[in-house]
């Protein structure tokens, strides 16, 4: 069995297991909040993974996630809330419109010859605010009044509201992660990595750089918009300030920087950790501090972490497992937290801290235990794959 088949079967297993969680609700009698918490994670997994397809793979830094997400939210809410479409038909349209927005943007920006990377980054930053002001001033979109999405009917096959949102977010998150995975190991993925390392050389070696960048941007924008369209019913009341703010791009950047932008799993790991932490900070009544902590983490991680925690976790999966489950078991047994989510949050923070120890610290620890360097081969292999600096 090839590695790819094994991974794809893994997706099916994980997806089915997570998909069955709502069915277990009555048996295990866990609070309804856990479902909401989980689908918030799915939301961010989809956003971060789709962002990473463009930015992580091709190196084109995008602040446009909020714009694509916002286009998705507003496409769905205008169609459903103002024109009475059924939600399930509006959802794919949201993805298509967001994707088209991304492609039009790419058509303009990728044509610029000089400074493309930086100009791309700042144009995407500006786009969200231009779209926001257009939506604010145009009564056929929002006009500053907001759109009510409460009471939107979801198909009955999916169960009642929370369960339906759970299943749909899970589905879209899976699609985003599988897309990111398939691109990662494809000709397209290798082309994008080449563009990131040196676009001129890649182009000279025959990588169709413009087409590849457009595909990556299109995938990023349409997945972000699709999830945005779905999120409109979770928001309930859609307003411009809520949708087109800096939160979405900020979080996806932080998640991917933390998890690692070179591997498709990086954003997934980052999304799980950051969503859990943000949720705990909010429930501890620290919502004000939240933004400052997030901004501070972004600065520190951007400077300190080169390859993200996921790569390090894989290199030291034993230590990772021991730290994570050790802390998790200890916190659960001691019962110091009221919520299981807090236990997980502690375990994640402990794992991240251990993983972020610099190599020098690991040498010290190894010497202390008198062991020979176990991962010497890994180090060398990693050195080969790591290009640029």
């Amino acid at each position, binding site marked *: 069995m090839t590695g790819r088949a094994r991974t794809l079967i893994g997706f099916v297993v994980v997806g089915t297991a997570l998909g069955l969680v709502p069915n277990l609700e009555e048996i295990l009698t866990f609070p309804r909040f856990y479902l909401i918490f989980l689908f918030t994670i799915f939301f961010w997994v989809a956003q971060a993974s789709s962002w990473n397809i463009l930015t992580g793979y091709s190196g084109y830094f995008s602040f446009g996630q909020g714009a694509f997400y916002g286009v998705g939210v507003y496409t769905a809410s205008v169609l459903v809330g103002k024109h009475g479409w059924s939600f399930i038909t509006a959802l794919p349209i949201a993805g298509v419109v967001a994707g088209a927005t991304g492609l039009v943007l790419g058509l303009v920006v990728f044509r610029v010859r000089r400074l493309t990377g930086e100009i791309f980054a700042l144009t995407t930053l500006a786009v969200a605010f*231009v779209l926001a002001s257009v939506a604010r001033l145009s009564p056929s979109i929002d006009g500053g009044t907001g759109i009510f999405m409460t009471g939107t009917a979801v198909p009955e096959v999916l169960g009642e509201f929370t369960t339906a949102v759970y299943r749909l977010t899970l589905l879209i998150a899976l699609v985003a992660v599988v897309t990111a995975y398939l691109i990662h190991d494809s000709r397209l993925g290798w082309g994008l990595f080449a563009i990131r390392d040196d676009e001129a050389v890649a182009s000279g070696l025959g990588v169709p750089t413009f087409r590849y960048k457009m595909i990556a941007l299109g995938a990023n924008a349409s997945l972000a918009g699709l999830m945005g369209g779905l999120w409109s019913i979770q928001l309930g009341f859609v307003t411009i300030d809520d949708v087109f703010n800096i939160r979405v791009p900020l979080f996806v950047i932080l998640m991917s920087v933390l998890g690692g932008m070179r591997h498709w799993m990086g954003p997934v790991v980052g999304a799980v950790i950051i969503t859990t932490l943000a949720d705990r900070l909010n429930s501890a009544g620290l919502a004000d501090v939240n*933004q400052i902590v997030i901004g501070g983490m972004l600065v520190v991680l951007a400077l300190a972490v080169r390859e993200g925690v996921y790569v390090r976790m894989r290199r030291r999966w034993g230590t990772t497992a021991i730290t994570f489950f050790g802390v998790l078991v200890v916190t659960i047994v001691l019962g110091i937290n009221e919520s299981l989510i807090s236990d997980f949050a502690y375990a994640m923070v402990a794992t991240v801290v251990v993983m972020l120890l610099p190599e020098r610290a690991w040498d010290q620890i190894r010497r202390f235990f008198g062991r020979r360097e176990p991962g010497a081969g890994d180090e060398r292999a990693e050195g080969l794959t790591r290009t640029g600096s």
Partner: protein
Amino acid sequence: MGLLAQGIVSGVLVGGLYALMSLGISLSWGALKIINLAHFAFILLSAYLVYQLTVSFGLDPLLTILIILPLFFLVGVLMQLFFHLARVDEFKSLIVSFGLLIIFQSLIQTTWSADFRRIGSALNPYETESFFIGSVAFPLAQLMAFVSALLIAGAMYLLFTRTYFGKAVRAVAQDPEMARAFGVDPRRVAVILSGLSTAFSALAGVFIAIGQTLFPGLAVGWFGIVFSVVILGGLGNALGAVVAGVIIGVAAGVATILWGPLAAPLVTFLILIGALLFRPEGLLTTRSVA
């Protein structure tokens, strides 16, 4: 006709403020290769500090410049030292300064709350005063911003073209290693330039505090306009920034009069797209620093 003339005049004057807001970002990007999004926070922070100084101590808003500019020059110096220490390159500067922007914005929000703040008219003699030529009004606050932008742009132009320091800046922008070989200390040049550009942003904040109502969300709303001015004017080009600011100010002002407020952001964005497609190197390229 009178309305249109007023629209053009207001556009020109507002363009001066846009230019002032863009100068810091443009200079640090063009000459230091650091895309510093934190400048948006500095503009806002300076505006709030001016507000606080006038309200708490009854200072004349213009007098606060004497405190604000040195203070922010220092902030710029410290930030550049931090960037050097952390070895921030052009690409990382985006992420790091984005994080700094978020931190400063949240700090502003926790300090001054999300409420609207405005210097009362008793303390702010410049708010409502205007010069008139015929029936066309020249609001004093905007006029001052415009004149400062012109003066600074002119001074920067002379500094870059006529002085040894300007030559050093251009040398560092082109090739820091080579500049070092010829006896220029790139770090010192960068630190001074960063201080200057942060002070320019702070000056923009002073005029914003005089002329506008403040709230924390203001900063992100500037992205579109400032970025358009920076690109259209050319990176590191102070005179270009003024020209671009005026073009965008006039276009947005006229568009608002002709087609209503919906048109202003669209026109700004169309100018940006046009600039990216046809003149990505900026309007007045030959005089650019970088």
